[in-house]
């Protein structure tokens, strides 16, 4: 058991954050007398927080590379508003609208990326400007709201997968299958990674921990799946979108040359450049990507609201940035993982949901969220300091 303790001690951070999520979930489960984890609430937890998770995926990369993006909320409102106008005023079909909206998002990212990467203006300033510019443009475009969006478009955020596989008792078959595939896939990839570590004689986690970790994760996914399958309507479409984005971008960040360059540039820009990394192009790509993801968030927010709203997306950037930092992304860059940011986003989401169920005053909700952010990062720093001295 000693090995286990030592290993846990060395990886406080990773397990600490998961434990924090569990504690918060349990706390609210008790406080709300079990209402937090009502099947229908789980579905809406995902739908309500999809935007944080999507933005946090891009934001992790931005912060790891040593930048920040304050404009994502405004960009989401701008792109969302534009989408609403395309649908309502120009009567474009929904898929064309989505494509154009994504393209516009990428262009917005390219615009900001240009100033940051090629002119050399700090991202803080460029995106602060972008925050104003795109909020302004959103208001110019939309006025206050553009309502009356087609049902297909609204289904992106509000829709569910149809019960294609029928029901097992009360439970939606398709949801169960998706959950099982998810668990199997995760177990398989973890096992493969572990095997590779062992093959190269690198220290893998002790078997006890490995199995325990898998079991816990599988149980979590299993429980969520089961509850979802019992919910009124099965798997939200958004869950698939978010899931796919997480998979794709985790792969990009961990396994591709581009991902490695993001870490290299964030860790030591000079050294990266002298190793032949094109830091400018890397920065540019990161912001194009962030613009694209902001567009996805904008589409989903607009779709969920059923209308283009000029004031949509206010404070989205703060939620995304907070999710990254809670999830262990380093303020100075160079360190951070998508999985961590996703857990950070879930913590924020559970807080949002639990506090609303408890009907806590929104003003106090902000206070509490602020304190949680502070506490999470403080824990991080303290645990690191201890790690250094032992």
């Amino acid at each position: 058991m000693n090995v286990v303790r030592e290993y846990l001690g060395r990886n406080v951070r990773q397990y600490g954050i998961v434990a924090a999520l569990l504690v918060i979930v349990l706390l609210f489960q008790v406080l709300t007398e079990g209402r937090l984890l009502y099947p229908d609430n789980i579905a809406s937890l995902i739908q309500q927080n999809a935007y944080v998770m999507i933005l946090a995926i891009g934001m992790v990369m931005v912060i790891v590379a040593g930048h920040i993006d304050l404009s994502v909320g405004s960009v989401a409102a701008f792109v969302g508003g534009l989408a609403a106008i395309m649908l309502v005023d120009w009567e474009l079909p929904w898929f064309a609208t989505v494509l154009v909206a994504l393209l516009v998002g990428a262009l917005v990212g390219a615009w900001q990326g240009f100033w940051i990467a090629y002119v050399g203006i700090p991202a803080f300033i460029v995106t602060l400007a972008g925050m104003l510019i795109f909020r302004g443009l959103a208001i110019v475009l939309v006025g206050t709201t553009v309502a009356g969006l087609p049902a297909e478009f609204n289904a992106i955020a509000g829709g569910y997968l149809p019960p294609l596989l029928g029901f097992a008792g009360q439970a939606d078959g398709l949801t169960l299958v998706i959950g099982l595939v998810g668990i199997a896939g995760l177990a398989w990839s973890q096992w493969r990674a572990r095997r590779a570590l062992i093959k190269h004689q690198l220290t893998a986690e002790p078997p006890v921990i490995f199995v325990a970790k898998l079991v816990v994760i599988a149980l979590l996914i299993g429980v969520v799946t089961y509850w979802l399958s019992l919910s009124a309507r099965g798997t939200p479409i958004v869950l698939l979108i978010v899931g796919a984005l997480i998979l794709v971008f985790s792969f990009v960040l961990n396994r591709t040359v581009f991902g490695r360059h993001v870490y290299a540039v964030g860790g030591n820009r000079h050294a990266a450049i002298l190793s032949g990394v094109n830091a400018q192009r890397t920065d540019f790509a990161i912001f194009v990507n962030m613009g694209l993801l902001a567009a996805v968030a904008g589409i989903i927010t607009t779709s969920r609201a059923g209308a283009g709203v000029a004031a949509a997306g206010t404070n989205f950037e703060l939620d995304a940035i907070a999710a990254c930092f809670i999830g262990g992304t380093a303020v100075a860059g160079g360190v951070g993982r998508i999985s961590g940011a996703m857990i950070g986003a879930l913590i924020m989401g559970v807080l949002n949901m639990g506090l609303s169920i408890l009907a806590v005053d929104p003003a106090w909700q902000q206070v509490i969220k602020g304190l949680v952010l502070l506490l999470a990062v403080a824990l991080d720093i303290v645990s690191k300091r201890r790690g250094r001295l032992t």
Partner: protein
Amino acid sequence: MNESKAEDRPEDFVLQMLGITKEFPGVKALQDVTLEVRRGEVHAICGENGAGKSTLMKVLSGVYPHGSYEGEILVEGAPARFGGIKDSEAEGIVIIHQELALIPYLSIAENIFLGNERASGGVLDWGTTRSEAARLLAEVGLAEKPETTPSDLGVGKQQLVEIAKALSKRVNVLILDEPTAALNDEDSAHLLDLIRNLRERGITCIIISHKLNEITAIADRVTVIRDGRTIETLDLHGEGITEDRIIRGMVGRPLDSRFPDHESTLGEEVLRIEDWTVHHPVDTERKVVDGATITVRAGEIVGLAGLMGAGRTELAMSVFGHSYGTRISGRLYKGGTEIHARNVSQAIAHGLAYATEDRKKFGLNLIQTVRENISTSALGKLASWWGVIRSEEEAGVAEKYRQDFRIKAPTVESVVGKLSGGNQQKVVLSKWVFSDPDVLILDEPTRGIDVGAKYEIYGIINALADAGKAVIVISSELPELIGLCDRIYAMSQGRITGEVPRERATQEELMRYMTMEKTR
């Protein structure tokens, strides 16, 4: 041993470290180490890279506070428990770390009094700050204005600023961790004189260095550490205590010669740098490199000698994808055809590689792993055409270099920032050797590397040459250039002032060219 005094009495020791053991997760850096330093002596610490020298000094200076290690520290015979640097400084123990720690954009005066400000009621007293700084700078023999910023100074002068900073405190025991590693012979000699002066003034010095000639020249006693254990303490005034004797203690066996035997087989000319001129990036009128012409043939090892500021690094970096300087002119031929390398990726694509002299700033990503650092400059080789890295192959490559270059890291997944200085240097080398260039420019490749490992690195360089690569070595250690190179260029004030073949290469000859003044 040849102890001059019959028996040490406890009161002779200004400082004793007894039975020090220090563990990091997975690494036992120090095991039961004992170090006893007499009052007023210069005490050297020798040992291979990763032996634990820096760690021992960090324990002593409170960087690793009491409780994070086992064992006892006695200052003037009384137990000391330092909770941090402030505590050790209060006892007059001041450390200058291996990696310099000046704030680049504060003036030297401010740097000297950083954390120790000359102020009244929290308001800086600029008059005293400046005048005292000027006095301290004079004391260490640095002719710079107190307003200058370290970013405008070379490493040699920065080192002197560090010493001035140490002297601004009440110092009894001054610890210098590889102070001359980054210095050329002239600056080193100056520094050693300074240390002798301090000894006259009654300041005890502990010095860590891989340059054994300096140690035999300056130290009174030397403690040898190997694999985290004290091996022995030798009295350098005793008989028969030579460099070779120290090496035997460090490595555990005698080392027959400092340079492996090597005969180069020369091939065609691989690289020709012609009429290369580079201007300073800020002061764009100033020529940093002035019409330099250099050729290297396949299988040849060519040296670049020069004093600090001669323009060797600037020449190399500007050739390597214009990484330094502005208004660069001149021509670059690779295998006879002219090439243009305007950025680093083009340079790498043309088969050039440049291993930097400043590993911390330009060479490594300290928060990434050994594996990731080794693969950065040639990730393409480990990735599919659409950019997915083959992780297993990458790990395999990194592991191969860890073993070949004997990088002392528990695994290739260790974070580079936690390796000892010399082992970090080996990671830099691995990275460029892995990129498999045709021309490899090594800027101070053995800086901070122990004698045994130096021998290994010379072996690696020779093997690279035998594999038909053209190697350019920039070094401030003339014996190294003479022992290693087939041909040596000397630079002075941005110009190539001489070219000396191996047969004629002597330190005097090289020095003559290196100090040649501009005549035009």
